[in-house]
């Protein structure tokens, strides 16, 4: 394996791992706000790592700059979108889930 291959493999593995965490979080977490956490943070880092792998693949060239631009763009827009959604949820009066809700209402440990 060449250094490039190792770097790409590590970055892709990291990207897939964090995106996987984001997916699991989206399914497992109890309410809108907590799911937004998972989607905004883990997904952004996962995408960032995967796009870093893309940048490494293209080498020092214009596409690398574009990939970097894409990463930058995602790091700005993903939290903004998450914030917009969370605020929309708050405006609609959706109450955040707390630990007490689980003890009184839920049965899954």
């Amino acid at each position, binding site marked *: 394996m060449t250094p490039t291959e190792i770097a790409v493999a590590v970055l892709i593995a990291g990207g897939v791992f964090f995106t*996987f965490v984001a997916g699991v979080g989206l399914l497992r977490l109890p309410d809108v706000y907590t799911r937004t956490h998972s989607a905004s943070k883990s997904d952004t880092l996962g995408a960032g790592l995967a796009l870093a792998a893309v940048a490494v693949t293209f080498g020092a060239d214009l596409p690398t700059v574009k990939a970097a631009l*894409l990463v930058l763009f995602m790091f700005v827009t993903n939290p903004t979108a998450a914030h917009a959604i969370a605020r*929309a949820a708050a405006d609609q009066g959706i109450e955040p889930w707390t630990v007490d809700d689980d003890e009184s209402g839920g049965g899954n440990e």
Partner: protein
Amino acid sequence: MSLVPDILLAGASAFILISLVVLYRVLDGPTMQDRVIAVNAIGTNIVVILALVGAATDTPAALDIAIVYALLNFLMSIAISKFTVERGGVL
């Protein structure tokens, strides 16, 4: 010869699988915002998949498409959030 395209394609397929799982949240809801978050996450994954496939097949133009898709994805989230606040929901 090089393993890089294979690694990239393997990564892309993993992203596709995760997106399919997240699709459950889009269908299940229960609230509007859950769906928007899930669609947004899938959109982010699609951007990554576009870039990965582009890199694997050595098609730099795919990155331009990815950038435009990322823009649209962001606008979608903002527009729907705004809409649900001012109009009480679109779906």
